[in-house]
């Protein structure tokens, strides 16, 4: 093992391919069986780690119910301005209140018109 082997071993964990080592070191790996073996181990490691992306751990059955419970608790506890459900209810309520105000105003106008009509 020479000085280049030492540098290659130091740098291999931080690169994604031998080419990333740079010209001289990459060229050294091409001629050094020990460094090729070491590069192959890191390539194998990266491939195995990448393969983990296809494996999934089954979530516990309690996960979904616990999420639903938390969300329902939040919906009933958090301030109104952060509560989506209540926000929608508030919009509906304000629309209903607006309609009620409009209806009341209409009644007042109609009554006022009738009074003025009767007075005339």
């Amino acid at each position, binding site marked *: 093992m020479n000085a280049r082997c030492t540098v290659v071993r130091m740098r291999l964990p*931080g690169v994604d391919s031998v080419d990333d080592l740079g010209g001289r070191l990459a060229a050294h790996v091409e001629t050094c069986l020990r460094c090729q073996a070491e590069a192959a*181990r890191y390539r194998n*490691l990266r491939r195995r*780690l*990448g393969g983990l992306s296809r494996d999934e*751990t089954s979530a516990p059955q309690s996960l979904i119910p616990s999420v639903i419970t938390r*969300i329902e608790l939040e919906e009933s506890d958090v301030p109104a301005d952060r509560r989506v459900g209540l926000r929608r209810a508030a919009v509906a309520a304000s629309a209903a209140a607006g309609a009620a105000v409009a209806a009341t105003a209409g009644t007042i106008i109609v009554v006022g018109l009738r009074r003025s009509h009767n007075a005339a």
Partner: protein
Amino acid sequence: MTQREVERFEEDQLVSLASQGDQAAFTELVRNHQHEVYTLAVRMVADRELAHDVAQESFVRAWRAIGRFRGDAKFSTWMHRITVNTAFTHRDRRKRTAADPLDVVYREPESESLSPERGGESAAIRGPLGEALSALPESLRSVVVLKDVYEWSHVEIAEHLGITVTAAKVRLHRARKSLRLTLWSHRNEEGA
């Protein structure tokens, strides 16, 4: 909207409905993504019970924020980011709790919580690679998982972990070197 109705919807429709406050649509999203979110949580914290808490909290945070989800990334990508952030919040909380000597006495070691003897682990955490990963310090494990399993860039990792890009690269270097030494030590050179 009933659960049966939302089961037929595509993901973008579910996201759209959920962002308008439809809990059934959001529950369907949770159902579709629970395993990948839980898997990422397990890989980040290396503790199944804590991973359950992280996954649950991640979905609750997603529910709170889904009105701001713009859809320029996939929902799963967005959930991954939330899960990573949540895992780190839990880690910080756990560190603060561990400062209490009583908690230290009764806290289970991480590696023990992942021992195959306790059963039920999947390929995400079992086997020589899974064991080597779970034996890494959390700061190294999170970086190598995000880079080599989930293909995040150094910049993304640095942003989400609150570290510099250089620190992310240094941690990746240390993590890979440690895994290599564990998997191809002189003793198990053949078995790795």
